């Protein structure tokens, strides 16, 4: 036993096993998510989803994985070989690295970083580079358009996302994810920061390029975007693994910083298993929202995507930062946070809704029976 403990005292071995756990968790989550998405989307579309492989099609992701691995690994003759083969790693590794900073319970995480939040966004932003290189190296016009869109989109949406999170960390007074969760206590930050949560949700959807923000992949116009020329394990790394893992990472982050992580209103002395249940329930809730949006929304156009970010989300993020700063400086009571942020969100929602409809009547079709 002593030998074993001393083995883990070695920095490299300790790091290795923690990373292995994260890798296993990530692969497991991705497999579960692909299955879960197909089931949820299936229900939304009045289908059953996969049903043939195992009970309720639970083995479907494994079948998919085998199929993908057995496919031929194609590379276009005109592709830039080095960049083409590097791109999946550039997209995948940053997402993998974000897991390092995520605590899953009060005491279990790979590493508690005092600047965990900053690290998370700094690292996850690198994924854009992988997509850009993938699209550029493929020597394909669809991929190129998709890559340009991804790069523009991911970089733009980082800004309001970071503003929303910045406003939140002003309240928490820390960038350490564990501290932020501890700071929330029984009442999660989503109660005090509805506007910030809204911005976070929008940007998270955009960050993982899912509907309504999936202009990068855009099946109906670009037929898959940057990963159009990839096949086999490369496609899997570039698209499935990266996207679903990023989805899970963002949902976990959201549940940590906005939904109170492993805490809930009834106190926390329920044991570590309860913490695990709480955090995965909250994460699943956020994932459901993502899948729901994916199943029902149309895709917005690339220029609308950009103006939504710069003209709508960015000012809102600044408003949230400003409100929090005001309240913190003058030391107003907590409920003012909820009221101001809630009012700002309501006003923003109304503006968005009215902006589309006030100008012109929606229904311009009339009936003519005298023709």
């Amino acid at each position, binding site marked *: 036993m002593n030998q074993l403990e001393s083995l883990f005292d070695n920095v490299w071995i300790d790091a290795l096993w923690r990373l292995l756990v994260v890798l296993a968790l990530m692969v497991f989550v991705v497999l579960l998510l692909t299955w879960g998405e197909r089931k949820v*989307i299936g229900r*939304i*579309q*009045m*289908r059953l989803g996969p049903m043939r492989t195992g009970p309720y099609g639970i083995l479907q992701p494994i079948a998919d994985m085998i199929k993908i691995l057995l496919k031929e690994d194609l590379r276009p003759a005109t592709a830039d070989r080095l960049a083409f083969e590097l791109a999946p790693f550039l997209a995948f590794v940053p997402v993998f690295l974000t897991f390092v900073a995520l605590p899953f319970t009060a005491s279990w995480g790979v590493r508690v970083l005092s600047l965990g939040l900053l690290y998370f966004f700094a690292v996850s932003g690198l994924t854009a580079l992988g997509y850009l290189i993938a699209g550029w190296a493929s020597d394909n*016009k*669809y991929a190129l*358009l998709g890559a340009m869109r991804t790069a523009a989109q991911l970089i733009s949406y980082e800004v309001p996302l970071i503003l929303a999170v910045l406003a939140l960390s002003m309240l928490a007074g820390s960038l350490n994810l564990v501290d932020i969760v501890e700071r929330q206590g029984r009442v999660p930050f989503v109660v005090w920061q509805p506007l910030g949560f809204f911005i976070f949700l929008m940007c998270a959807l955009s960050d993982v390029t899912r*509907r*309504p923000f*999936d*202009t990068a992949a*855009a*099946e*109906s*116009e*670009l*037929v898959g975007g940057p990963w159009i020329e990839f096949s086999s394990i490369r496609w899997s790394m570039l698209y499935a693994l990266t996207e679903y893992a990023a989805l899970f990472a963002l949902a976990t982050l959201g549940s940590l910083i906005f939904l109170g992580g492993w805490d809930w209103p009834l106190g926390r002395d329920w044991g570590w298993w309860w913490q695990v249940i709480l955090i995965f329930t909250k994460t699943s809730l956020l994932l459901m929202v993502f899948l729901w949006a*994916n*199943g*029902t*929304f*149309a*895709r*917005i*156009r*690339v*220029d*609308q995507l950009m103006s939504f970010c710069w003209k709508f989300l960015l000012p809102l993020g600044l408003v949230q930062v400003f409100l929090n700063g005001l309240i913190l400086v003058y030391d107003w009571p907590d409920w003012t946070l909820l009221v101001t942020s809630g009012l700002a969100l309501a006003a923003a929602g109304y503006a*968005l*809704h009215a902006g*589309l409809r006030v100008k*012109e009547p*929606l*229904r*311009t*079709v*009339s*009936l*003519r*029976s005298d*023709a």
Partner: protein
Amino acid sequence: MAKRGKNRLMVVEEERDLETIDINVNVGPQHPATHGVFRMVLTVSGEKVVDVVPHIGYMHRGAEKLSENADYRQALIFQDRTDYLAQFNCEMCYVMALEKLAGIEVPERAEYIRVILSELNRLTSHYMFAGAFGTDLGVYGTVYTYAFREREFIQEVFEEITGDRMMYGYFRPGGVVWDVPDNFKERVRAVCEKTRIGINDIERLVTGNEIFVARSRDIGVISGEDAIDYGLSGPMLRASGVPVDLRREEPYSIYDRFDFDIPVGERGDSYDRYLVRMEEMRQSLRIIEQALEQMPEGPILPEKLPRRLRLPPGEVYMRTENPRGEYGIYLVSKGGEKPYRLKIRSSCFCNLMALKKMTVGHYVADAVTILGSVDIVLGEVDR
């Protein structure tokens, strides 16, 4: 040397600009947005479309020429294969052209059956449009599955009546090939009820959705005058504010007996085209219900139908209001059992001509929206 030196000091604005080139993006013939084997080459400057070159003909099977080598009744099947989403409407046009030239009287009951089936077919066709249009706008197949569930109810009725799901071949010069089942009226009434709910389902899912509106509003606008100049017809024309519907303008068959309205758009954009089609479905339901009320008993074919159909020499142009617009058959007979010439006036082909006019200046994603709003069927475009 002096010039270079001068330039180095005073950099003119043009030189500072990055050199950009327009690229050609090939969309199709194998592409999810093209609804078949249509191909368009978009010249894009960044994300903006500056030119569109459509290429058609990948599905040309020579239906017109083949018809010349077939007996009048045999040639009917080519009509199923032109607009394969509105088969009954095409069959109707063809048999009515034959009847007009041969002077065959069609029994009342057969007329009603034809009208009911044609209007049901309009419903299935517009369902198909709604589903495909939703997918073009980027909905993850949800509109599609909604539409296809509803479409299936109607498809089942067709299968029950004709024994086929796609190539019906049910109409005949003079009537229909056999009578409909006894429970026809109840079946169709039940289907109408379901369809009414189904249209509402789709409308609730997408019609008021902000993203859906933002994506299709003011996209691919074509004015009423332009629409007429380009020879557009059907929902494309009516969405531009021109209330022309052949069922009302020159009522063929028994359409003058029904009370129905013509939905007309005001702006002529993709969204109006969608709205017009959804409203048309409701009007079709009205026609079907009235027709079911009035449908008499009786024969479905004239009693004295010649065993071999020989048409007198002459020519005839018959046009009907298909789901996609005006479908015309121009038939030249020199006597005998085969057409001398059969020309099909394709509604999609003419509607597609305005593609460039509508698309240039919009974004790449809008090109897909606009193509979807034209609602092409390549079988009809290429014949």
